[in-house]
C-alpha cells in the first residue's frame, strides 16, 4: 500500500485564518485537526482510495459547523500588528531610556555636549544663510521683487544707464513697477551741525517697488524726476526724528541739501531701509533725459516688482528682447549687453558669496557629523556593555525592532536635549555674530535671528542627528545573536564586531576633522598674512576723514582746499597733512592707461592701473619716499606741466627694461581726453585692497591733486600724536573754514586698512572655531574608542604582561592599532579637504590652496592630538596588575 500522506496543515490554515484567532490558539487548532484528519485518512484511504478519501475529508473542512468551533476558541484577542509601536510601549521605552541614561551621566553629558556644539554651530550657520540668502527683502511678497542688471563679464559694470532704464520703463509689460537708483551722500545743513549722510537718488518707481508707504506725506511721483521741477526730498524716520524733532507738519517745509533748499514731501516709516541700512534721505534723479541715447546717463541699480500673473522666466524673456533692441541704439557702440531679471537677493549677491556660505554650512554639518559619530560610539559602547541584557530581552520575546528602537530612543533623547542646549548656544553665537557685523554692512536686508524656519531646521537636524548616531548602535544591537551572547561569558565575540565598527567611525571622524582643520588652517594663515602685510606706507598715528563741498564753484573749492592744507600743516605737532582723491590702501581709483607712442588698437590693449591724486603732503603723512626721480611737490600746480609718480609695479609692467622718467602717460581708455602726464618719479609699490582681496600690488599712478580741475571732495589724513590726529581737531579746522561743511568717514588709518579685510577676518575666524571644535570632538571620540577597546582587552593585555611583555610593548601595540586609523583618516580627509579649500576661496588670502605648510601643520596637530588620545588609555593599560587582569572576565 502506498503510504500516501498529505500535509493537512495548509488546508486547515486556509480554513482557519479568516477567524483571526490568537496565534497560539490558531496553532493548537490546526495541529489538533490536522492530526485528526491524518489519522482518519490513514483509515479511510485503503477502503475507498486516496483520492476519494482526501475529497471526503476536505469536504468536511468546508462545513459551516467549524465556524462554531473556531468561535469557541476565540478566548483571547489576537494581538494587533502595531504592538511594538503602540504609545504605551513607546512610553515604556522612553522611561527605560531615561532611567538607564540617568545611571550614566557621563554619557549624557558627553553626548549632549558634542551634539549641542554641532547643532548649535549648524543653527548659527543656517540662521546666517537664512537671514542673508533665503529670507529675502523685509517687504511684502519680497519674492516678487526683482533685480534687473546687465550681464557683462568683460566690464565690472552691471548697472543700467538711465537712458536704457527709461526705454525699459516705457516698453516692458511684465513688471508692475520699476525703479532705478544710485547711492551717494549729501550734506544736510541747518540745525546743530552739518552732517554728511547716505542719500539715494531714485526714480519715482523705486519706493513703490518695496510696497512701503510714507507715514507722513507721499513718496515720489513721476514729475519729481523732471529736471525743471522744484527739488523734493523724502526723509528717513531717523532724520525726521533727530533733525526735525518728529515735526508732524513737516511736509512742505524745506531741508538744505548740499547748500540747496529741497521741499520735504514725505517721511518713511521707522526701520525702513532701502537700498541700504543707513539711508537718511531719498532724492529724485533730476537729469535732463531728452538728449540721452541708450548707454548714456548715470548708471542705475534697477529693481522691479513682478506682475501677479508673471513668472521670472517670462520677465527674463521680455527683457532679453528689449535689451537687444536697446543695444542697437547704444552709444558708444560697445558690445551688446543682455539684461537679466532675477529675484533681488539672487541677483544682488555674487555667486562666490553663496558658495562661501554654503561651504560654511557644509563645514558645520561636518562638525555635526563628527559629533554624531561620537554619540554613535558612546551608544555602541553602551550597547556592548549591555550585550547580555539585550540577549535576555531578546530571549524573553523582545523583537529585533524593539531592541533596535531602544537605542534610537536613547539617541533621540540625547538629541532632543542637545537641540535645546544647541539652540541656546546658537542664540549666543548669533548675538556674537551680529555684534561683530554691526561695524560692517554686508547686505541691508540681513536679519539674523532664530526665525521659525531656522528652528524647524534645528528640529530637523536634531532628528537627523539622532537617527545618524542611533542607527548604527541600533542595527548592531538588533544583529546580536541570542545564543552566542548568553553562552559567551567574556563578550569577546560580540564586542569584537562592534570594535571594528567603532574604529571605522573613528576613521570617518578623523577624516572629517582634517577637512575642517585644513580649511581652518588656510583661514588662519590668511588672517596672519593680512596682519603681516607691509603696506609700503605708514598707518600708525595717521587719522583720516573725508570732506565734500556743497559749492560747485571751482575757484572757491580750490581756495578752500588750499586753506585747509595750510591749516592742517600748521597744526601743532602734525608731522604731515595730506589731501587727496582718496586714501592709499582702500581708496585707490581705477583707470585704464596709455603710454605715449605705443599702439592701442583694441579697448582691452589699455592696461588698468590704480590711481590717486595727492598733495605733496602725501609723502610726509604716509612716510613714502621716492626711489627714483622726485616726489610730487608744491610746484605741481594747475598751470605747470602735468606730472605723475608711478609705482615700481607700474615700471615693471610698462618699462621692464628702460627708465620711465620723462615718458608720458595718459589716464583713460579709448577716446580719453585726459592730459598727457610726464613721469617724474618712482615710488615703492603700495598696498591696494579691494573687495575680492585679489591682486593687492597692482600698477599704480600718483597724480598731483593741485593739477585736478574739479576739487569737490577729498580725503584728508593727518599724521601726528593723538591730540592732532583725531576727528575733533580736524573737524575744528574744517568748520573754521566753512561752517556748512561736515567731515565724515572719520577713522584711523589702521581701521581704514583693516576694513576691506573683514570678510577674511570674520569668516576665517568662524572656520577656525569650526575646526577647533571638530578637532576636540575627534580627539575625544578617538580617546573614548581607545579607552573602551583597552578596557575590553584588559585580560589579554594582562596575559601578555604576565608572559613578559613590557609596558612599552603594550603601549606600542595599542598605539599601532590607533595609528592605522589616524593615518587612514588623515589621508582621506586631505583628499576631500583640498577640494573644500578651493570652494572656500573667499577666506583664503595669499596662500596657495596646496600650501604644503598648512597640510603639514594640520597633519601634525591632528596626528599629535589623536596620538595623545591613544597613548593615555594605553598607558593606563600598562598599570594593570596581571593578577587582577586575569580575574576580570
Amino acid at each position: 500500500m502506498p503510504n500516501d500522506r498529505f500535509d493537512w496543515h495548509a488546508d486547515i490554515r486556509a480554513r482557519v485564518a479568516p477567524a483571526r484567532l490568537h496565534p497560539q490558539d490558531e496553532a493548537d487548532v490546526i495541529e489538533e485537526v490536522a492530526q485528526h484528519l491524518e489519522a482518519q485518512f490513514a483509515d479511510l484511504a485503503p477502503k475507498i482510495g486516496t483520492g476519494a478519501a482526501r475529497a471526503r475529508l476536505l469536504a468536511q473542512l468546508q462545513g459551516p459547523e467549524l465556524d462554531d468551533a473556531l468561535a469557541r476558541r476565540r478566548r483571547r484577542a489576537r494581538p494587533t500588528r502595531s504592538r511594538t509601536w503602540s504609545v504605551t510601549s513607546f512610553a515604556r521605552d522612553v522611561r527605560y531610556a531615561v532611567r538607564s541614561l540617568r545611571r550614566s551621566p557621563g554619557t549624557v553629558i558627553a553626548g549632549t555636549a558634542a551634539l549641542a556644539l554641532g547643532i548649535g554651530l549648524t543653527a548659527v550657520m543656517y540662521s546666517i544663510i537664512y537671514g542673508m540668502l533665503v529670507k529675502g527683502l523685509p517687504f511684502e511678497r519680497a519674492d516678487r521683487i526683482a533685480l534687473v542688471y546687465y550681464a557683462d563679464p568683460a566690464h565690472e559694470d552691471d548697472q543700467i544707464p538711465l537712458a536704457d532704464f527709461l526705454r525699459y520703463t516705457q516698453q516692458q509689460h511684465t513688471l508692475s513697477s520699476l525703479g532705478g537708483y544710485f547711492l551717494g551722500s549729501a550734506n544736510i545743513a541747518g540745525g546743530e551741525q552739518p552732517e554728511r549722510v547716505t542719500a539715494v537718488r531714485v526714480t519715482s518707481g523705486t519706493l513703490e517697488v518695496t510696497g512701503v508707504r510714507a507715514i507722513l506725506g507721499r513718496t515720489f511721483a513721476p514729475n519729481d524726476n523732471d529736471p525743471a521741477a522744484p527739488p523734493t526730498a523724502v526723509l528717513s524716520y531717523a532724520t525726521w526724528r533727530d533733525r526735525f524733532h518728529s515735526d508732524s507738519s513737516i511736509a512742505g517745509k524745506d531741508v538744505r541739501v548740499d547748500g540747496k533748499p529741497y521741499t520735504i514731501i514725505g517721511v518713511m516709516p521707522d526701520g525702513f531701509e532701502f537700498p541700504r541700512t543707513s539711508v537718511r534721505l531719498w532724492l529724485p534723479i533730476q537729469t535732463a533725459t531728452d538728449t540721452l541715447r541708450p548707454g548714456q546717463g548715470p548708471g542705475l541699480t534697477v529693481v522691479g516688482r513682478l506682475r501677479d500673473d508673471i513668472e521670472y522666466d517670462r520677465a527674463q524673456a521680455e527683457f532679453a528682447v528689449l535689451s537687444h533692441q536697446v543695444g542697437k541704439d547704444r552709444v558708444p557702440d560697445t558690445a551688446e549687453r543682455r539684461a537679466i531679471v532675477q529675484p533681488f537677493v539672487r541677483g544682488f549677491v555674487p555667486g562666490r558669496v553663496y558658495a562661501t556660505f554654503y561651504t560654511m554650512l557644509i563645514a558645520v554639518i561636518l562638525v555635526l557629523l563628527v559629533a554624531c559619530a561620537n554619540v554613535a560610539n558612546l551608544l555602541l559602547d553602551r550597547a556592548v556593555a549591555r550585550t547580555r541584557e539585550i540577549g535576555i530581552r531578546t530571549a524573553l520575546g523582545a523583537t529585533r525592532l524593539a531592541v533596535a528602537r531602544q537605542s534610537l530612543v536613547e539617541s533621540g533623547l540625547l538629541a532632543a536635549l542637545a537641540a535645546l542646549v544647541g539652540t541656546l548656544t546658537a542664540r549666543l553665537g548669533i548675538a556674537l555674530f551680529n555684534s561683530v557685523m554691526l561695524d560692517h554692512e554686508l547686505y541691508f536686508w540681513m536679519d539674523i535671528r532664530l526665525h521659525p524656519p531656522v528652528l524647524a531646521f534645528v528640529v530637523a537636524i536634531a532628528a537627523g542627528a539622532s537617527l545618524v548616531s542611533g542607527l548604527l548602535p541600533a542595527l548592531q544591537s538588533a544583529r546580536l545573536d541570542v545564543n552566542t551572547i548568553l553562552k559567551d561569558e567574556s563578550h569577546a565575540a560580540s564586542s569584537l564586531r562592534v570594535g571594528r565598527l567603532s574604529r571605522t567611525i573613528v576613521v570617518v571622524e578623523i577624516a572629517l576633522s582634517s577637512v575642517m582643520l585644513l580649511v581652518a588652517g588656510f583661514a588662519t594663515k590668511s588672517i596672519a598674512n593680512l596682519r603681516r602685510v607691509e603696506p609700503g606706507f605708514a598707518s600708525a598715528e595717521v587719522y583720516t576723514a573725508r570732506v565734500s563741498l556743497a559749492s560747485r564753484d571751482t575757484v572757491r573749492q580750490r581756495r578752500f582746499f588750499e586753506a585747509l592744507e595750510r591749516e592742517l600743516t600748521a597744526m601743532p605737532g602734525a608731522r604731515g597733512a595730506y589731501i587727496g582723491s582718496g586714501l592709499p590702501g582702500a581708496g585707490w581709483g581705477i583707470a585704464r592707461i596709455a603710454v605715449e607712442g605705443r599702439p592701442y588698437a583694441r579697448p582691452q590693449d589699455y592696461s588698468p592701473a590704480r590711481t590717486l591724486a595727492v598733495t605733496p603732503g602725501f609723502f610726509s603723512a604716509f612716510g613714502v619716499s621716492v626711489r627714483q626721480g622726485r616726489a610730487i611737490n608744491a610746484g605741481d600746480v594747475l598751470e605747470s606741466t602735468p606730472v605723475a609718480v608711478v609705482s615700481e609695479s607700474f615700471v615693471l609692467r610698462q618699462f621692464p627694461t628702460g627708465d620711465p622718467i620723462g615718458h608720458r602717460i595718459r589716464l583713460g581708455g579709448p577716446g580719453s581726453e585726459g592730459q598727457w602726464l610726464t613721469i617724474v618719479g618712482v615710488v615703492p609699490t603700495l598696498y591696494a585692497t579691494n573687495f575680492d582681496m585679489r591682486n593687492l600690488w597692482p600698477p599704480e599712478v600718483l597724480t598731483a591733486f593741485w593739477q585736478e580741475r574739479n576739487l569737490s571732495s577729498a580725503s584728508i589724513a593727518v599724521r601726528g600724536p593723538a591730540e592732532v590726529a583725531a576727528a575733533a581737531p580736524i573737524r575744528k579746522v574744517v568748520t573754521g573754514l566753512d561752517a556748512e561743511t561736515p567731515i565724515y568717514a572719520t577713522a584711523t588709518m589702521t581701521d581704514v586698512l583693516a576694513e576691506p579685510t573683514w570678510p577674511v577676518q570674520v569668516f576665517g575666524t568662524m572656520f577656525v572655531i569650526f575646526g577647533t571644535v571638530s578637532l576636540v570632538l575627534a580627539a575625544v571620540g578617538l580617546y573614548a574608542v581607545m579607552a573602551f577597546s583597552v578596557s575590553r582587552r584588559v585580560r589579554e593585555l594582562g596575559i601578555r604582561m604576565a608572559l613578559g611583555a613590557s609596558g612599552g610593548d603594550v603601549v606600542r601595540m595599542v598605539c599601532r592599532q590607533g595609528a592605522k586609523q589616524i593615518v587612514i583618516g588623515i589621508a582621506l580627509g586631505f583628499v576631500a579637504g583640498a577640494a573644500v579649500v578651493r570652494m572656500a576661496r573667499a577666506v583664503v588670502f595669499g596662500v596657495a590652496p596646496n600650501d604644503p605648510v598648512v597640510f603639514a601643520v594640520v597633519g601634525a596637530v591632528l596626528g599629535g592630538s589623536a596620538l595623545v588620545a591613544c597613548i593615555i588609555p594605553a598607558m593606563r593599560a600598562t598599570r594593570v596588575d596581571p593578577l587582577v587582569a586575569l580575574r576580570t572576565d
Partner: protein
Amino acid sequence: MLTDELKKGSAEFLILSLLEAESRHGYELQKLIESRSDGVLTFNVASLYPLLYRMEERGWIVGRWVEKSGERRKRFYRVTPAGRTALEAQRESWKEFVTAINRVSGVRYA
C-alpha cells in the same frame, strides 16, 4: 435512523460517558462512538470539534497536549468535576426519559 436533533442532544452525553473512564483524543472519540453505535452515530471534524470546544468552554472537559515518547504530542480530553456532575444529571434524566418512553410505548427490555 436517528434524527439530527436527537443526535445533537445526545452527543454531549455520549462524549462525557466515553471520557469518564479515561482521557481520549478527538479521533479516538469519533471512532469509539461510531463503532459502539455500530455506525448509527457518526461524527467528523466539522461536527465533533464544535462540541468538544463548547464543552471545554463550559468547563465540563479539559483538553491538554500530552507528549508520549516516540510519538507526536496529542491533545487529550478529560472530564472535569463539573463534567462529572453534568454527566450524572444527564444519566438521571436519560433514565427518566427512557423509562417514560418505555411506559408509554410498551417497549420492554428483553
